[in-house]
C-alpha cells in the first residue's frame, strides 16, 4: 500500500521557490550579469551619444521582451507537454545542445579582447539564446526564436559602414528635398550632403539628423515588433513594413521641407541646431499605425460585406 506524500504547505512552497531562485542567481544570473556588464556599458555609451545615427536601437531590447512575453504562453504550454511526454529531464527534447552557449561565450570574450561593441552584442544574443536552448530544449526555444532574432537589431553597425550609409542617405535626402523646394518656387542648390536654400551662402542642412537613416529603420522596427507580437501572416507583415517605411520617408521629407521653409522665411539659423529625429519618428509611428488600422478596418468591412 503506497502512502501519498502530503503536498507542501504554502510557506514551504515559497521557501523552495526562493531557494531555487537563489541557486539560479548564483549558477547562471551572476556570471551572466558579470559577462554582459562591459558590453551593455559600451552599448549605452554609444546609444546615448548626441547625434548617434541609430540611437533608436536603445529600444530594441524592450521590443524583444515584448515579443518574448507574447510567446511565453506557448513556451509554457510546450514545456508542460514535454514534461508529460518525456519525464526524464536529461532527454534531448528537454535539454538542448550547449554548443551555442560556448560559441556565445567565445564571441563575448573575443569582443572584450578586440573592444568591439558589434561583436559583443552578437555574443550577448548568442549567449542568451544558447542558455535558453540548453536550459529549456529546442522545442521551447523554437517558440522564442523571433524574440532572439529581433534582439539582433540592437547590434550596432560598424562605424565606417554607418558613416558611409548615413552620408549616402544624407545626399539622397538633400537632393530630393532640394527638388521639392525648387518646385515650390525657392532657389536651392544641393552640393554633396549640404543643401543651400535661397541666395545665402550659409548651408541650410547637413542632412545628418534628418537623413532618414534614423527615422525610417526605427519606424520599421516598431512595425516589425507589432507584426511579431500580433503574429501576422507574411503578406500582412510585408504590407505593414512597407507602409511604415513609406510613411517614415514621407514624414521625414516633409519635416525637412517645412523646416527649410520656416528657416528661409524667418531667417533664424539657430533652428538648424534642432534635433527633430525623435519627434519625426513619433509622428511617423503614429501616422503609420493609424493608416494601418484604417486600412485593416476597411478590409474587415469589405470582408464582412455581402
Amino acid at each position: 500500500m503506497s502512502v501519498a506524500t502530503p503536498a507542501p504547505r504554502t510557506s514551504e512552497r515559497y521557501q523552495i521557490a526562493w531557494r531555487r531562485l537563489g541557486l539560479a542567481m548564483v549558477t547562471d544570473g551572476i556570471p551572466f550579469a558579470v559577462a554582459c556588464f562591459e558590453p551593455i556599458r559600451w552599448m549605452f555609451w554609444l546609444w546615448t551619444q548626441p547625434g548617434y545615427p541609430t540611437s533608436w536601437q536603445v529600444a530594441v531590447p524592450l521590443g524583444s521582451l515584448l515579443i518574448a512575453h507574447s510567446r511565453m504562453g506557448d513556451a509554457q504550454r510546450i514545456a508542460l507537454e514535454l514534461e508529460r511526454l518525456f519525464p526524464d529531464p536529461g532527454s534531448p527534447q528537454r535539454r538542448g545542445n550547449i554548443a551555442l552557449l560556448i560559441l556565445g561565450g567565445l564571441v563575448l570574450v573575443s569582443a572584450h579582447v578586440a573592444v568591439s561593441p558589434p561583436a559583443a552584442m552578437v555574443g550577448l544574443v548568442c549567449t542568451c539564446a544558447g542558455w535558453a536552448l540548453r536550459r529549456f530544449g529546442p522545442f521551447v526555444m523554437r517558440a522564442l526564436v523571433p524574440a532572439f532574432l529581433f534582439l539582433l537589431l540592437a547590434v550596432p553597425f560598424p562605424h565606417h559602414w554607418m558613416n558611409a550609409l548615413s552620408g549616402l542617405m544624407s545626399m539622397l535626402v538633400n537632393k530630393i528635398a532640394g527638388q521639392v523646394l525648387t518646385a515650390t518656387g525657392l532657389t536651392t542648390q544641393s552640393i554633396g550632403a549640404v543643401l543651400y536654400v535661397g541666395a545665402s551662402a550659409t548651408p541650410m542642412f547637413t542632412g545628418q539628423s534628418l537623413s532618414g537613416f534614423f527615422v525610417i529603420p526605427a519606424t520599421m522596427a516598431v512595425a516589425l515588433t507589432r507584426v511579431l507580437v500580433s503574429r501576422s501572416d507574411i503578406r500582412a507583415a510585408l504590407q505593414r513594413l512597407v507602409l511604415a517605411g513609406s510613411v517614415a520617408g514621407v514624414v521625414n521629407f516633409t519635416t525637412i521641407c517645412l523646416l527649410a521653409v520656416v528657416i528661409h522665411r524667418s531667417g533664424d539659423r539657430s533652428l538648424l541646431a534642432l534635433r527633430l529625429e525623435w519627434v519625426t519618428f513619433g509622428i511617423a509611428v503614429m501616422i503609420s499605425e493609424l493608416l494601418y488600422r484604417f486600412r485593416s478596418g476597411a478590409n474587415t468591412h469589405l470582408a464582412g460585406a455581402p
Partner: protein
Amino acid sequence: MIRIVSRCLLSGVLWSTAVGCVSVSLRLRGMGSWLPEMPARVGDWVATETPLSLETRSRLGNPRARSMVYRNAHGESVVVHALAPKVFQGFGELAPIEMDYKILARQSRPLSGLHGAVSASAYESIRTPGLVLHALRWIQTPSGRVFPFEPDVGSNPVARLRRGFELLTRDPQACAVHVTTMTSPDGAGAGQVRRNVHEIALGVLSYASRQREASR
C-alpha cells in the same frame, strides 16, 4: 545525477565566460597610460614640440600624444607623433593620411639594431599628385618591445582582434609611434628622405632604450 552534471556544465560555461571577460577588461584597463620620452636632438637634427591637431586627436579617440618636428641644417624636416590610445582607433591611421593620401606601398621590416619589425609605408597625395609621404610606424611597449603597426585596426575586426591579443599578451600600455616626412612632387631626393626617416626612427628608439637603462 545527469541533471546535476548538466546544470554544472551550463554554470561552468557561464562562469568561464564571466571570468574571461573580467580578466580581459582588467588587463586592458592600462591602455593609454604611457608615452615614451623623445630626444631633444638626434645627430644634427633639433626637435621642436608641436601639438597634434584637434581633429586628428578627436578622430583617434583623444589619446595622450607627444608630437615633435625634427629639423636639420639643410631645411629638411621629419615629424614624429607618439600616441597612447585608450581606444583601438588610436592605433589606426592618422586623420590627414586617411583623408588626403592613397597608399602606394606597405611592408613590415626589421630596423637595424632592433628586436622586432616596423611598418614602412609610402602614400601619394590625392590633391597634389607626385607628393609622396614616407612613414615608419610601430607599436612600442614600456619594456622596449616593438611590433608592426596595422593602419586598418579601427575598421578591420581581424586586425583589431590581433592587436587586442598582442596588447593582452605583451603589454597593454603600448603606444603607437608615427615617423613621417614628404618628398617633393618632382621625386628628387627620395632616397635621402627615406634615410632621414630611418635616422630619426632609430634615434627615437635608441633614446627610449637609453632612458630605460638609466631608470634601472
